[in-house]
Every structure is written in C-alpha cells, then in structure tokens.
C-alpha cells in the first residue's frame, strides 16, 4: 500500500458500472516525510476520506475488487484507510 494525500475529486457520470455512486479521489502520493513524490493516482473511496486527509491507498487489482465486492470490475486503486499518525524509528 501507499501513503497519499487527498487533493481533489473526479466526477465521471458515464463510467464503468463499478464507479457508479462511488467517490473518486485524486490522491497525491507522499514519501515518509510527508512530501509529495510527484506521482498521483485516482482511487475509489472506500472509507469516506475527506479533503486534505492523509490516506492509505491500495493499488492492486485483486485486493481492490475484494474491497469493493466487485469480482470483475476494472478497478485497481482504492483508498482503504485514513492515517492518523506515522511513527518512524530513528
């Protein structure tokens, strides 16, 4: 999984059925210091994450389909957690 920050939303009315009624979040990926890596991903929100929150992103298809209970859906990235705190060993 990856760490990211919710930077916005994407609205798609015409879309694959799995995305209907689900929020798509634009997530900037972060390094362990909380800095943006320059990479980003659009992920389906599975936890109700809000603007600016630091989140856990799953970017792997099988896990994503299990989370969304959509066995044959073309989905790969899902926000699966809101991070309260990161603690690193010095």
């Amino acid at each position, binding site marked *: 999984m990856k760490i990211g920050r919710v930077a916005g939303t994407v*609205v798609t009315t015409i*879309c*694959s059925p799995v995305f209907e009624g689900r929020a798509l979040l634009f997530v900037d990926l972060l390094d362990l210091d909380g800095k943006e890596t320059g990479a980003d991903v659009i992920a389906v929100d599975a936890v109700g994450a809000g603007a600016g929150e630091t989140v856990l992103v799953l970017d792997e298809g099988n896990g994503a389909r299990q989370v969304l209970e959509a066995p044959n859906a073309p*989905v790969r990235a899902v926000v699966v957690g809101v991070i309260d705190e990161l603690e690193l060993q010095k």
Partner: protein
Amino acid sequence: MELARVTGTVVASTIYEGLEGVRLLIVQPLDRKLQPRGRPVVAADGVAMAAPDDLVTIVASREASLALPAPPGPVDHAIVGIVDAVEEWSR
C-alpha cells in the same frame, strides 16, 4: 487510474479475437493540472462512448481487460469513465 485526454483513434481490421468491435483510442495521460505526462498510449474504450478531445479516466495493467464487454481481452489500458469535472481542493 489516471486522467487522460483522447487525442486520436486507431483502426485495426486484423485484430486478436476478443477485440473485434472494440474502439481503440489514442490517449495522452495527464497530471492533476491537466498537463501531459509521459507518452501517449492506445487504450480500449471501456465505456464505448469516448470521443476525441474528451477528458477520461484510464486504468492500466490487467484491470484494463476487465473493462471490455467480454473480458479478458489483450489490452493494457482502458477508458473506464468520461470526466465531467475535476475538483481540486485547496490546502
């Protein structure tokens, strides 16, 4: 998934089984500022409604084939949504 802009179409009359009738579009991946990022790729149109100049969402790797009407098919990028709006939250 990532954002992309449809920039062209591909016609291939000889094509692997499973891809007959599937629209193939050239898409340029974009960043959040809608600036081009990386090289264009050919994507299958999983919503069957994307048109040139449309802003779309694309999915890559194996998941792309699941966007086709009869998966799995031999594709590595697929359009899975047509974007109406991108809302950027300020910090």
